[in-house]
């Protein structure tokens, strides 16, 4: 029986070490991460990093619909030959030729998210900063464009392989002049008798996607960032 005991101890310690060092201790420390305040002298700005969090209610819809299967939320640094930081539209600057690369993601960017949906695969674009992508001419968030993308993904890009999330919308006959919340679909005829109304879940999902702006300046690096400009 002593060899059996030795064997069990072997199993215990060989796995217990990585379990403790790699999982338990870092996880307990990750749970204690707190926001960092900007230093007015050093950073030239007030407030705390990271700023506003994400919309948790919408994140639940994001999780339930399995968006992570195709979308990541993680900008990789460019040193390993990764292009994430330079991809058009993956940062705050939506113009064709941004001056600077988007900064890589950090632990604090995901503060207060129970489990960050970093993603399974990247069959679609990264969504870490997708909140900047859907804006109208005045720079205001364009909810309609995002709803259209979710409802009819191929109305913008014919080649898109994104599934439609029609089940988050109701499709019914117009009453009177129609609802103020109805989607303005690009290829719908204006005299159509039907309209598409987002359900609460679709609104939550859009709130969540618009809240994804994971590129707040990092305390201590703000001046260095600004100097590059």
């Amino acid at each position, binding site marked *: 029986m002593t060899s059996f005991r030795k064997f069990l101890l072997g199993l215990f310690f060989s796995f217990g070490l990585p379990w403790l060092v790699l999982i338990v201790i870092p996880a307990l420390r990750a749970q204690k991460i707190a926001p960092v305040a900007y230093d007015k002298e050093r950073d030239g700005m007030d407030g705390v990093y990271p700023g506003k969090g994400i919309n948790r209610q919408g994140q639940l819809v994001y*999780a339930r619909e399995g968006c992570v299967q195709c979308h990541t939320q993680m900008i990789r640094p460019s040193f390993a030959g990764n292009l994430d930081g330079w991809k058009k539209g993956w940062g705050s600057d939506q113009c064709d030729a941004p001056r600077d690369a988007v900064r890589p993601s950090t632990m604090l960017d995901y503060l207060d998210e129970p489990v960050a949906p970093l993603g399974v695969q990247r069959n679609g674009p990264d969504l870490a900063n997708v909140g900047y992508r859907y804006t109208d001419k005045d720079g205001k968030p364009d909810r309609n464009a995002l709803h259209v993308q979710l409802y009819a993904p191929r109305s913008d890009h014919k080649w898109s392989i994104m599934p439609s999330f029609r089940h988050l919308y109701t499709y019914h006959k117009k009453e009177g002049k129609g609802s103020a919340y109805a989607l303005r679909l690009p290829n719908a005829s204006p005299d159509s008798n039907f309209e598409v109304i987002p359900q609460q879940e679709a609104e939550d999902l859009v709130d969540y996607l618009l809240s994804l702006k994971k590129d707040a300046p990092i305390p201590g690096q703000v001046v260095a960032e600004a100097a590059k400009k």
Partner: protein
Amino acid sequence: METTNTNAITSDDSNRRAAIDRSVRFPVLFLFANAAMWLLGATVMGLVASVKLYAPEFLDRSYLWFLNYGRIQPAHMNALIYGWAIQAGLGASIWLMARRCGVVLEKGAGTIVTAAVFWNVGVTLGELGILFGSGTALQWLEFPAYVWPLLLLAFLMIAWRLVGMFARSRNEQGFMITPWYVLGACFWFPWIYVTANLFLNTWSLHAPLGAMGAGINAWYMNTLIMLFFVPVGLGACYYFIPKITGKPIASQQLAIIGFWSLAALGGWTGFQKYMCGPLPAWMPAIGGAAAILMMLPAGIVALNHHLTTIGEHGMIQTSPTLRFTFVGSFCYLIASLVAALLGNFWTGSSMQFTHAEHGFHLLAIYGFFSMTMFGAIYYIVPRLTGCEWLSARLIRSHFWFSVYGIATLVVCMLVGGLAQGESLNAPDNWNLPVIGSIINARGYLIGRTIAWVFILWSNLWFFIHLIFMVLGLGRRSVAPTLLHREHDDAHATA
């Protein structure tokens, strides 16, 4: 070894073995039959999911919203892992443990069947949960949070029996590498599963983990492969290869080194999935390093199996079990090479977040683990049912369609993943949307569908064949079904 020398079998021995087989008959067959059913379901879902990646209009009806890729893909992987792989692994483990330890399962068959029912109820609830909107989006832990305690309880009920068998094993049983591996898996799986679920599904709601949670999720997937699928699969290889070739394991030292290096390295892998990400750099670094070092146990085990089989490779042609086991054990070597490719910086940064990772998972779960389980099932089931497999042709077509299917699948996913990743990282494409990676991967995704059709065909016949056997409708004969054109008795003991 139990039957190193086939001439020395006494009627006492065969009686003892028959008693062992009788005692585990019902639970093992129950697990195998349910597992085969889930495998069929998982294959159908894999086929649907694979089509959706290049033809989004496929089954895209308003009333089929639950078949969106984001739901059917996790449902497919979870059915494959929990429905088929772990369940078949448990069935094989029970038989291997009982036989290798020479212990009759005196009481407890009922407990195991109850546990198996619990397990299947849990998997069913989980699958429905994913499809109908309570998925958690934690990769391979997508089952709704109320399912995991049920699965854990069922697993522990079975694992407890296995530990009991080992404790009662007779001392003269010799070198116990197979029970070691099975015990390791029984010990590690609950530990990994509880850790991942408590952190990710329970505590994270009160104490958010942020990016660390994603890292733990990646660790769960890799440790599930390295510390459950690998040990159970290798345990089966270490039993059936010597058993069928009639030769002892070539080197006990190599086997021991292989076991303990797996145990020491297996727990470190996983974080490399998020290399270059927000996690502290040492975590993916250590994960990648461990993934590369894992080639060591894989190489040692492969060498040992090769040395054991030397001179008897011809039996791969005749024995269905050895044939499946051989391919499985070969795939383990390939899978560890692919893991090393994915885990390092130079090749990994192009393959990160692409189909290549999916290819690795399927190579490990299907190419390696499932193949060894098929081998085990072809050996075990006739001994439990008292009848022989109906048709060598069905076994042959199961084998070839599985092998061609999984090879096509893995090659398509690895090359397609590389094409996808290279396109995303190509400096020329910086201002394009992801069209490049979608167009580049399309051909390989169609290949993936063809591969799933092959696998579906093979598993359909496997399922039907197995059900016939479980119902006792097999061939009444003393000669086992071998894969030669004519049924000769030359290898009747194989």
